[in-house]
Each structure stands twice: as structure tokens, then as C-alpha cells.
């Protein structure tokens, strides 16, 4: 794998966010460089979604700093959003619109010229193998197909930074493998990708991994390096050991 270099496209420094009595983010920090696929791995409630929303400028922070391409995602939101693709965890497209209409909506929102839209949407439909279902309503898609459509919508404007919140959650193994293959293809085009997942076995598919627990990172590094350093056989083992150390 090519060593990614340069300034981080996505950077979180000491993120803190509280919701009432619970602390969702407790000093979490990470950096993703262009051409790098960074996996934020951790169980439910580790603060992954909150961290992603903070980076996308969708929530206010109680402390710390988020930067996207060197910009503040809230104060310089407009500029950030033109260059950022987000795929939320929950169903977030329009169920009563067809696959093509959902794509067309996002094409218009990003003001893509007609020709560019046609070329990109065709290519994305082909890559995701959704082309035969272009006229199907989004609520009639299977879980895996829906996720691929959401990915296509997030990629339509060729973002420099792509953030995906648990894209493989609730997806069958075949579709999961397809999604990862697609992601690798786009990363090699120089995109910075941040992906969150609760599945430990997916950690190995990333260039770098951060183990999230209770709003902060327990450990961070290239997957094989992390395993070698700790002497654990699997990420699950490694994770359990790190949690025990953290108390």
C-alpha cells in the first residue's frame, strides 16, 4: 500500500462533547491523510457517530477542534460541505424517490452540469451494480443495495473527503465485501476516507485503525503493526485487552 503523505485532510484534536450527564466524546483525536482509509473501530456507544458528526460540522463541540481540509466545518461550513461526502448511519435518502431520482437530487444540490452528472451517475450505477434497478424506489431496495446507493449519492460530487458512519452495519457478507472493494478503489484515487464500524474483523481492511472506547482512542496504528505490538491474534482479543488496561 502506498504510504499516504502530506497534510491531514481530516483532523480531530481533543474532541469533547457532553449530552447532559453523559460524555460522548472525551478527548478523541485522529488524523486522516489524502489517499488513506482510516477505520474508527469500536462498540456501540463508543462515540463514533458523535465524532463523525463533529467532523462534518453537524454538532457543536464542548471542547477540542475539528478540521476538514484545514477548514473549520462549522464556521467555514459552506466551503467544507462542497468538498465533503457524508454517508450517515441511518436511512437518509428519500424512500419514495427512485434510485435515479435520489441521484439526480444530489446531482442538482451539488450543481453538477448535466453532462457530468450523466457520466458520473452511469459510472457509479455500474460500479455499484445498481444500473438495472435505476427506476426502483429506494424503499424497495435491500439493505446492501440501499447502502450502495447512499455511497453513490455521497460520491457523486467527487468529494476530497469521504466520511461513512457504519456503512456495513446490517449488510449481508457479500454486499459488505463489495462495499469495501468500492471504497478501496476510491481511496486509491487520492480521497481521504474515514469509516466507522463496530465489526472488529473489518479493521484489517483499513490503512490505519483507531480503537474507540468511551469517547477516546485506546490505540491507533496500522492494523498488522497494532497486532504485532500487542501480541494479540485478532482485533477482538486486542480490543478486550486494551479495555481491561484502560479500566
Amino acid at each position: 500500500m502506498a504510504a499516504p503523505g502530506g497534510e491531514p485532510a481530516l483532523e480531530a484534536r481533543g474532541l469533547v462533547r457532553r449530552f447532559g450527564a453523559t460524555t460522548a466524546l472525551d478527548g478523541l483525536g485522529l488524523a486522516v491523510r489524502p489517499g488513506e482509509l482510516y477505520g474508527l473501530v469500536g462498540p456501540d456507544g463508543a462515540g463514533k457517530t458523535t465524532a463523525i458528526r463533529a467532523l462534518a460540522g453537524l454538532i457543536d463541540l464542548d471542547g477540542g477542534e475539528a478540521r476538514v481540509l484545514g477548514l473549520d466545518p462549522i464556521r467555514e461550513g459552506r466551503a467544507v460541505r462542497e468538498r465533503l461526502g457524508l454517508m450517515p448511519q441511518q436511512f437518509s435518502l428519500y424512500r419514495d424517490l427512485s434510485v435515479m431520482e435520489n441521484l439526480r437530487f444530489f446531482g442538482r444540490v451539488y450543481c453538477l452540469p448535466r453532462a457530468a452528472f450523466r457520466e458520473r451517475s452511469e459510472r457509479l450505477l455500474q460500479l455499484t451494480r445498481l444500473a438495472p434497478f435505476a427506476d426502483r424506489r429506494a424503499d424497495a431496495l435491500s439493505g446492501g443495495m440501499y447502502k450502495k446507493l447512499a455511497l453513490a449519492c455521497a460520491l457523486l460530487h467527487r468529494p476530497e473527503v469521504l466520511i461513512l458512519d457504519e456503512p456495513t452495519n446490517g449488510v449481508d457478507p457479500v454486499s459488505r465485501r463489495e462495499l469495501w472493494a468500492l471504497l478501496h478503489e476510491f481511496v486509491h484515487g487520492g480521497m481521504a476516507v474515514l469509516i466507522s464500524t463496530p465489526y472488529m474483523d473489518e479493521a484489517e481492511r483499513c490503512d490505519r485503525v483507531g480503537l474507540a472506547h468511551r469517547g477516546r482512542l485506546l490505540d491507533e496504528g496500522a492494523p498488522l503493526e497494532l497486532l504485532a505490538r500487542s501480541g494479540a491474534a485478532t482485533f477482538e482479543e486486542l480490543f478486550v485487552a486494551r479495555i481491561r488496561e484502560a479500566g
Partner: protein
Amino acid sequence: MRRSALRVGAMAWKETLHILRDPRTLLLALAMPVFLLLLFGFGVSFDVDRIPLAIADGDRTEASRALVRAYVEPHEFEPVAAVEAEGAEALLRQGYALGALIVPHGYAEALDRGEPGGAQLLVDGADGVIANQVLAKSDATALAAGQSRLAAAAGAIAPPVAVSVWTRYNPEARSAIFMVPGLSAFLLAVGAVLLTALTVAGEWERGSMEQLFASPLGRLEIVAGKLAPYLVLGELQFLLVLSLGTFAFDVPIRGNGPLLFAFGLLFLLGMLGQGLLISVLAKSQLVATQAGALSSLLPSLLLSGLLFPVENMPAPLRALSALVPARYLVRALRGILLKGAGLDVLWPDLVAQVIFAAVVVALATARFKRRLA
């Protein structure tokens, strides 16, 4: 600027697809007003036909019989008893008659002398609506009778006919003519507030708000794109209600069409803004529907002057009604449709509508935070 217009267009296009795909929205917007208008126009009519009338003719002359005929023949009044003047009140008390026409002895002679005849109408005032109807109809009848006497006496010296009240614009006091303009305001208010309250809350509930917030769409662009199709739908609704009023209930359109259109548009903008504000605060379709229905239905029905004249309200309620845009539309519609009033009379109502629309849309946009939590 051009990109902004493109984004608003994208939003409006998507929203139009939602409307076309959801038969409930179209039904709510187009069928409900028609149904309600027909129900109110035909079913819930304040018109009283064949009012039971006791007649006490103490004169028994050609002139007195002519007056009685004038009351009875158009079937507005139904003679139920011929009594002496003293017995008339008993019939009213028993509820046997709603009115009693009392023609005094010497009625014809008085008319011949050129003096008022002194005929009386006693009215059962227990039900204010019915009493008003009886009075209005009696006015119309007495006026007609006076005019026909004038015509009959043409050439001779016309006797003065005493007329105390002259009901204009709606001389037959038909409730449809009075109700349709008011009802259309009410229906527009409820429809517009509910529709928008649902659409923005729906965006939160479906989870699509997260995707919209992460896109370059500005808050104002989201709001404008969402409102535009509903504004068009609302104007269609307005047109539908007005044409139904004209064709089914003979409501006249005496005033200026563009002014009517402008009032409708401003009113809708205010109502859509109110719906938007509610859904921005509520974020759930259920709460938004309830708050939307409550905040549009009751004020538009009770405080707008649709059923109860604003002038008769106690001061605090009258002050409250100043915040209800339906009040201005009801006034404007009655003015434009029935009286042919123009901007010279209605400008304060237009200004009030503009202020309301500007304030609610500004409030809604300000409260519409681009944050998920």
C-alpha cells in the same frame, strides 16, 4: 447566486415528487377543502326558510292584505296562525311561531295620508342567529313591498315609505355568500400549516435532514425550496375554493382579481411560515400535526371573524385576534368579493399580512439550526 437558485430548484423538484407520490397530501390539500366547503355551504347553513309567522291583521283592508301577501308569498315566511294582536306573544313563547306580523287598525288610512303604516314585527330573539335572519328577511320584504307600492302609485304623489335598515351586499342574508370567503381563509390556514408542519418534521423523522445538512444547501435554500411547491399547491387550493364558491353558491367576485391573488399568496406565505416554525421546533410529525392543527384551526375559526364578528369580542380577545392572519384575509375576501373593495380600503390588512409572513419566516429560519443535537 445562480448556484443558490439551482439548489432551491433541486429542493422544490424533490418536494414536488413527494407531493405527487403521496395521495394523502393531495387529498388533504384538494379534496378536504371541497368537502368542507360543501358541508358548510349546504349542510351547516344559517339560512332559515319558511319561518313560522303568526299574523295579526287588525286592519283587514286591501293594503294590509297586500303587506301580508308580500311576507308570505315568497315562502320565506309561512303563516301558521291568524290571531288577535294580544295573542301573538303567547304563540312566540310557546315556540309555535318565530315571528308575528302585527298590522294595526288604521294601517291603510295612515299610508293614504302619507305616514308610516306602523306595522310591527315581533321576533323570537332567543336564538340570535335566527332572530337576525328573520329581521334581515323582514327588511328585504318590507323594502320590496314599499317599492311595489311606489310603482303602483306611479303618477300620483308617492307616499313616503319608512325604511329603517337597508341590508346591502347580501340583501337576502344568504349565509353561503357570507361564509364562503371566511371559510376559504379557514381552509387555507389549516391546509397550509398542516402541510408544511408535516414536511419539515418528516425530514427529521426520516433521517434525511442529516444528509441535507451535510450538503451545500443553505438553511434559507432548504426553507425556500420546501415552501415553493406548497405555495403553488395552496394557490391551487385557493382557486378551487373560490371557483366552487362562485359556481355552487353564487358568491360574486366584484373586486380585483390580482389583488385577490396577492392576498391569497401573502396569507399562504404566513401560514406556511407558521407551519415551518412549528415543525422546526417540534421535529416529530405527530407533535407537529397536533400543534399545527391547534394553532391554525381554532384561531382561524374563532378569532378570525369567520363565525363571530371581531368587533363584538371582548378587548383582550380582540387584541389577540390581531395576531391571527386569517382575520385580515377574511376581511379582505369579504371586501374584495362582496363589496368590490380595493387597495385604498384594504391596505392595512395587506400590511398586516406582510408583517406576519416576514416575522414567522424569519423566526423559523433563525430557529432552524444546522445542528443535529
